[in-house]
């Protein structure tokens, strides 16, 4: 049987590498977008995503799927945090503190890419 390699819950199970995390923190102003060619299935508040390059299936829970949704159109993580803070009635700084590691994880998993890569 040939089965997909599955990251059970990308947002929880995959700890961001320090380098990737630091890179995202440093680049909170960098524009990110959803990687091309993903197969995305929305299931209630969860999202299951097939990432073809690594042939991995990822399950994103509510917060991670919110970040992914927010980046359907490329924008900065600061912009994502502002939008989510407004939606949830929370402080931008607090939301940004959650968004950064999630985005780092999604970036490391290949689900997000720098916006400039989307143009090539």
């Amino acid at each position, binding site marked *: 049987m*040939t089965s997909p390699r*599955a990251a*059970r819950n990308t947002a929880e199970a995959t700890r961001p590498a320090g380098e990737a995390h630091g890179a995202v923190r440093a680049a909170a102003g960098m524009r990110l977008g959803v990687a091309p060619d993903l*197969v995305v*299935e929305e*299931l*209630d508040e*969860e999202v*299951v995503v097939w990432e073809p390059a690594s*042939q991995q299936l990822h399950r994103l829970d509510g917060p991670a799927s919110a970040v992914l949704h927010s980046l359907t159109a490329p924008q900065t993580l600061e912009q994502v945090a502002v939008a989510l803070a407004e939606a949830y009635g929370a402080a931008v700084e607090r939301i940004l503190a959650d968004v950064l590691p999630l985005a780092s994880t999604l970036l490391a998993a290949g689900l997000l890419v720098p916006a400039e890569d989307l143009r090539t």
Partner: protein
Amino acid sequence: MGTLSYASQRNVSTAGRTVAGTHTRGDHYARSVSVETLGPFAVFGDGFTVDVPTGSSLAQLAAATFSSLATDAATSEPLRLRAVVAPGSPPQKPLLAIEREDETLAVVATDDEALDYLAWAVNQLAISAGKERYTLLHAAAAATGDGAVVLAAPMESGKTTTCTGLVRHGWSYLTDEAVALDPETLRLHAFPKALTVDPGSQHLFPELRPDHEPDDGYKWHVPPATIRADAVVGSAAPVWVVLPQYVHGERTRLEPLTRGEAVMELAQCTFAFIERPERNLQTLARLVRATSCHRLVIGSLDEAVRLIGDLCERGRA
């Protein structure tokens, strides 16, 4: 060697011979190396036949084991499986060569081994035939008038045991090995092979003990009609997804799964998922949206069957 285990099964020899009577393997095989062809059989539209020593005990066992896959429909170029006396085999203790077309899969000494290899080859055919047209799950499935339950899990998790328990309890049988999920209609299509009851579960089904009494440690290949003449159903709509997990001594219980969790588990149980990832993921997502999804921790078969029955009752309420 005992008499034919599943005497109610119709004979499926294309040669029109009736396989009857009993032969000891050594005695018969030593006298004859002629071959009869059983079939045609079909899985997911692909045909196969099985060559066995004429009139042998293995011929009886194979005819019974594959009877639920018999077809009257013509299939082009059916796969040819063979269990024939191996060349150079000593007459006093003949060995059987198990062949798939021109490939020798194994050389074995007993009918039980031969039957296991033939059943394995049929499962392989089902996978190769089914994965193209369907999202094919390594799963068992049984149905009531309300719909079907998909029992998906890795090997040794209790799929066949639970499925056999359900069929014994009145449910209809679709498969204990490969669930074919139609991406267009979302219907489950049957692969109603003989139920493969592992040695560890055989004590739960004493009424299904084959008359020919396989050696200790061998699986029972139980034709579904042995449980009930009309046990097989051709297709059904899925209503429940249950992921069984046998845990000795554990309290039997159902635990709800989120749809995302269910898709991740089902993807792990999908044959050749990565060959058609988009189609397979979309089909699995549709499946979990259309069903209620649970993990089933099994300590007791009777309790597991009761809990699945309760799901069915709840659906009606």
